């Protein structure tokens, strides 16, 4: 039943968004595709942190893996259909996630944050170290074109938006089902109390690695989409700033909530672009107007955290309070507040 409900919701959302993409201007389509890419990456992260209780500051690095994988595949296998390229790029990133995840399963809290932080800092430099393959600072072109059956005059940005929406919806449906499956329950169990979970017979390490792989795979797909949208995979896009941006998007949206991942991604893309337009139209100097979005983003983050510790989705739930269906989430949210104080600290790091 749940599966059916998720698929139906996604289908309705899909039809609405597809139609919307045909009505919006090319630039809005471009932004929509960008948002979709972030939604995929943030959704993976919010599951990792909010459901399995592990933290990662390296989501941006996994996006880089996905983007570079896409660029390399398109370079060598230009004839592959785009869905195959995206799937292979996702699998490649999942593999990278497995390697890091196995190492990371032994760590928790700030130590895990440290390892993933290292990843975010170090990975972009790999592109410089292997200049001939990865193109150095300049990066690699991601040469994804509109498929032939749509016709030659089909706008590239609309196709990118469609692709992004389709991928994001598939990921959201899969994640929503995963969260409500036995695996999701087990993740919640280890998040709330590892010792109790292992006493109950759960293989904690294996579950943690699995969560890490799922999250990395999402980042990989997000990165692949991001590469397709911006037509480039370059180290400048996948800096520590991006990883922290993704983390804040997950937190602002509401940890552990897929709807929250959408809110967070919307803010991540729209707030800076709106504010830099406002700043430049008010005649601020270029140096000042380029710092405004970052400053404002910080303010939004502080405000949301003070007013709604549960993020935007948490606030919505509270506002819609009694009318909202009392699903499994309120209970887990309650438990999170009551028990796992170390978990709260993690979210702050």
């Amino acid at each position, binding site marked *: 039943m749940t599966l059916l409900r998720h698929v139906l919701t996604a289908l309705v959302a899909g039809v609405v968004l597809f139609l919307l993409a045909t009505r919006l201007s090319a630039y809005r389509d471009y932004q929509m595709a960008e948002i979709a890419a972030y939604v995929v990456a943030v959704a993976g992260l919010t599951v990792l942190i909010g459901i399995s209780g592990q933290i990662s500051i390296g989501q941006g690095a996994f996006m880089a893996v996905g983007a570079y994988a896409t660029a390399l595949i398109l370079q060598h296998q230009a004839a592959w259909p785009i869905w195959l390229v995206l799937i292979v790029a996702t699998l490649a990133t999942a593999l990278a996630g497995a390697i890091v995840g196995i190492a990371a399963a032994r760590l928790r809290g700030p130590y895990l944050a440290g390892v993933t932080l290292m990843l975010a800092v170090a990975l972009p430099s790999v592109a*410089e170290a292997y200049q001939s393959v990865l193109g150095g600072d300049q990066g690699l072109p991601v040469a994804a074109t509109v498929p032939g059956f749509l016709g030659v005059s089909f706008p590239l940005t609309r196709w990118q938006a469609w692709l992004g929406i389709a991928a994001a919806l598939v990921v959201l449906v899969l994640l929503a089902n995963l969260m409500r499956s036995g695996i999701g329950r087990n993740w919640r169990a280890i998040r709330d109390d590892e010792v109790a979970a292992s006493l109950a017979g759960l293989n904690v390490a294996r579950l943690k690695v699995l969560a890490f792989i799922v999250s990395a795979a999402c980042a990989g797909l997000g990165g692949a989409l991001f590469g397709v949208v911006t037509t480039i995979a370059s180290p400048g*896009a996948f800096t520590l700033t991006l990883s922290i941006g993704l983390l804040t998007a997950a937190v602002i949206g509401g940890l552990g909530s897929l709807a929250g991942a959408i809110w967070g991604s919307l803010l991540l893309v729209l707030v800076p672009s709106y504010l830099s337009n406002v700043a430049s139209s008010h005649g601020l100097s270029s140096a000042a107007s*380029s710092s405004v979005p970052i400053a404002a983003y910080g303010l939004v983050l502080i405000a949301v955290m003070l007013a709604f510790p549960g993020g935007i989705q948490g606030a919505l739930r509270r506002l819609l309070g009694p009318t909202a269906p009392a699903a499994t989430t309120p209970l887990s949210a309650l438990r999170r507040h009551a028990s796992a104080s170390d978990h709260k600290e993690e979210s702050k790091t």
Partner: protein
Amino acid sequence: MNGTHRKGLASVAGIAVLAMLAAACGSSGSSSSSSSKALTASAPGITSTQITIGSHQPLTGVAAPGYDEIAPASNAYFQYVNAHGGIYGRKIVYKYLNDQYDPTLTTSVVHQLVLQDNVYAIFDGLGTPTHLAVAPFLNSEKVPDVFVASGCECWNSPSTWPYTFGWQLDYVREGKILGNYVKTHFAGKKIGVFYQNDEFGQDGVKGLDYELPAKDIVAKEPYAATNIAIGPQVAALKAAGAQVVISFSVPAFTALLELNGLALKYTPQLVVSSVGSDPTTLAGLLEAFAKKGGATVNGSSLTQGIITDSYFPSLGDTSNSWIQLFTKIHQQYVPKLPLDFNVLYGMGVAYTFVQAMFKAGRNPTRQDLVNAINGGLPQAVGLTPYAYSATNHNGFTGGFVGVIKNGVEVALGPVQTTGTSATSPVTTYSTPQPAAPSSGIPSP
């Protein structure tokens, strides 16, 4: 959005029709030449009163020092043109956005300029790695991509990128001219090369390799623009015993090269390509970086004696009509900016754009601008003619080698031109540069 756009177009078209009718009624006797044709919204970004163009520029970040003056200087020239009648009466609106010299940000701001702001053309987009990220997009959208602020030889690809045009002396030619100078004036010396590890530096090194004997080059040290820790490279140059160091670097890295050398008591003869040698920018950077490291240096004395090249008349040549024109506009519109090579560059490239726009006609489509440049432009701000043709999208083809003395470049030799192949010789170009028009604006 679509609706208002259509309404806007309809009203503009309506006005245009009325104006044409009026013109037809009024001038039944006189011949209605093309110059009296009403101004129409002939292309995206062009209305009856305005031409909107866009650009991506590093206004903050590692490439910003010096380069952040270029777009304001271009804008100053456009304001001058606007104040003196515009282009066939239309005013130029120049919208340049900050990409921080980061290729991904470049794609984002260029998408905004083309898709949201509907610019007519991307003008003077700055940087090799940055602009490479958007050139395919601009060409697939058929947006004129004129006068890229980078000397990458890659902009000259009329068959793959018909809408892209270079402007400044390309790095291969620049490398050949500098290499040729070093070969004749520092014969037998050990030569080291320091270069930015992308198409910018690699093209420059290619030009050097065409001219310099391989046995004289004792070290080639690349740097990445994102990593300012270049100590190891400088130490390697010193260890190889390089007496002359030829540098293809942006200004910040030229300054770092010199300061790292000072720290190692290593002061080879520096030969720096024009993009990284502006004395004013360098002096400021040298002092700022030294201060950060807790030292004090005299920036301008450290720039003394650097050998470089230029495809413009030197700023020290105050009798040159172009220098006079740009000094006048500088004082009137952007007096706060230092009058340096970057300002000269910004105004120069803006002049070329105005030349091309006048040639493109009263109501140009995007293709008209491309055709106008493909048809060639008369020599103006550069010391050599433009190379533009349907099969060549390079701008200038040569310049002179000079040395920095008291903050300005003093010529060490004649203006030289060359080709981009290994075999094309470096030859002297003796035809004098034409004078600037007294109005300061190219004639239509």
